[in-house]
């Protein structure tokens, strides 16, 4: 179902626009491009600012020239910024990869059950899961911190793996459920006739068909965990030896350093590069995640 929604959005030019346009039609077409271009400029402005000012050196960002690209490239802000960010970035990569993979596996299992192997009360259980997607994490933060201390992971990076896996269960389950719902029931019936049980049906029929679903969920979890700031700042308590991409960046750009814009923009860009690359190359899966994570399209 979800892939239906995504393919609808991705639908190419349809026949209606291909017929010859009269005067009014041409006017509207020009108007549409004009409006779309203005929106494009607005959407691109913040990242444009970030990119051009990151190549002007640490102090080279002057107020009047900030909107104008530099005449020569100066990467001197990159080296020192990367030095500070390297360790937090690798730490983030370390926990994000783990939490995304675990989340995707759990999501696939749950999604399969809620889509194809329902039990009595499964709709209710699924709804209670979904509520977990909407809760403000502030409402669980105090006990979660206590739990982490009690469980002995309080001062390790595993607090973040744990948090993203647990609180990622609702969205990953939802995405996989929508994904599996599109697989015809006849496949299951046929396998049943051959005497296959639930685990075998899941493993031999559903898992091999799941690669796009896994890509969607992995990208979703990767992006949201990489960009997460709330869990990071609450659960690592600002400890430098547990700093991750967003908290390290916040430390660099925080209130005391707001004048070093060249530096700050570079740091912000470096931290955004991994998720931007994922978006650039796998954007269509990102869109799918957004749409199938929204209950009804």
């Amino acid at each position: 179902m979800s892939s239906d929604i995504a393919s609808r959005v991705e639908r190419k030019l349809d026949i209606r626009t291909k017929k010859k346009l009269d005067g009014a039609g041409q006017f509207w077409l020009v108007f549409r491009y004009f409006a779309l271009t203005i929106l494009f400029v607005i959407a691109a402005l913040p990242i444009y600012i970030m990119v051009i000012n990151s190549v002007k050196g640490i102090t080279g960002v002057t107020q009047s020239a900030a909107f104008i690209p530099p005449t020569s490239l100066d990467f001197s802000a990159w080296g020192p910024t990367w030095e500070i960010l390297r360790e937090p970035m690798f730490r983030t990569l370390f926990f994000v990869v783990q939490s995304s993979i675990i989340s995707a596996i759990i999501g696939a299992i749950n999604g399969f059950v809620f889509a194809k192997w329902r039990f009595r009360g499964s709709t209710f259980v699924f709804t209670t899961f979904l509520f977990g997607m909407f809760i403000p994490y502030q409402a669980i933060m105090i006990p979660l911190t206590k739990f982490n201390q009690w469980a002995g992971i309080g001062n390790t990076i595993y607090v973040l793996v744990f948090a993203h896996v647990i609180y990622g269960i609702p969205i990953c389950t939802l995405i996989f459920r929508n994904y599996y719902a599109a697989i015809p029931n006849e496949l299951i019936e046929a396998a049943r006739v051959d005497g296959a049980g639930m685990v075998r049906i899941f493993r031999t029929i559903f898992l091999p068909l799941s690669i796009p679903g896994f890509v969607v969920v992995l990208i979703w979890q990767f992006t949201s965990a990489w960009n997460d700031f709330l869990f990071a700042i609450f659960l690592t308590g600002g400890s430098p030896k547990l700093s991750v991409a967003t908290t390290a960046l916040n430390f660099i750009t925080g209130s005391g350093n707001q004048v070093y814009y060249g530096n700050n923009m570079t740091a912000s860009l470096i931290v955004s590069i991994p998720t931007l690359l994922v978006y650039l190359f796998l954007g269509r899966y990102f869109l799918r995640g957004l749409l199938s994570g929204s209950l009804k399209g």
Partner: protein
Amino acid sequence: MKVKKNRVHSPWGGFFFVLPSIIAMAVFVYGMIGFTLRESLQNRTNSYTEDVKYVGFINYVELWQDPEFTHALSNLLKFTAVFMIGCLLSGLIMSLLLEKGIKGEGFFRSTYLYPMAISFIAMGTSWRWLMDSARDADATGLNYLLQKVGLGALQSDWYTSEAGSMFAMSLPAIWQMSGYVMALFLAGFRGIPDDLREAARVDGASEFKISRHILFPQLSPTFLTVLIILGHISMKVFDLIFGIATKSYVTKVLAIYMWQVIFDFQNYAKGAAIAIVILLMIAVAVIPYLIYVNKTEEANK
């Protein structure tokens, strides 16, 4: 015996598959909400409190009398109103511009959506600079740009003045989320069967009438979804504001205040009460919505 069991749709197999997740949700979502609720009814107002006991709703009453809390709450409501209306309008405009298909659609769609892929702690740097409050000769960012295009009179304090702070703060939020709204509306528009429009067109209905009487009524489920998504994101808004203005008083919302109460003042009881207030504001909208979604799904089975 065994063969027979396999043939019937074994009802409990699925249950055992999801049991670990059920336990996790029960403990870490519902149990921990219960724990926070309990904390909000107790007297642990600093980290030295030893004699922890129930004090009823005192913490909530005190919140209501705390001007900083009411200020944060009214900020949040202002932000929510501007953010939701702004996102709905811009998302709808984007989707209407793209809806019929246009060359380069994929390119425009991707640029409108990329802000969702970037952390707000990173984007906050750009936005803080864009919304710099210095004016005239000292101006940078948007104020500088406004002067250059002859709109110097529109220079603003942006998020630094009490009057306009939440309006200014919704700009980056709208910038980030309208692409998402666009995608949802596009999916909604394109889910409407083409023959419905064709039929109306054959009957001589104008494009405007088709939108008004056919497209928009069909969009109401999408509309509801968009409202719920924007609403709950808005109630929880944290890193977007933190990334631009940290704990500044004029832009303080409930999530920021809660963080401050916990980390700077170690007032766990009060922090828990604020968290429960945020939760309740979300729950009154989301629970009926989930019940509605549940019902329509049952009906479609």
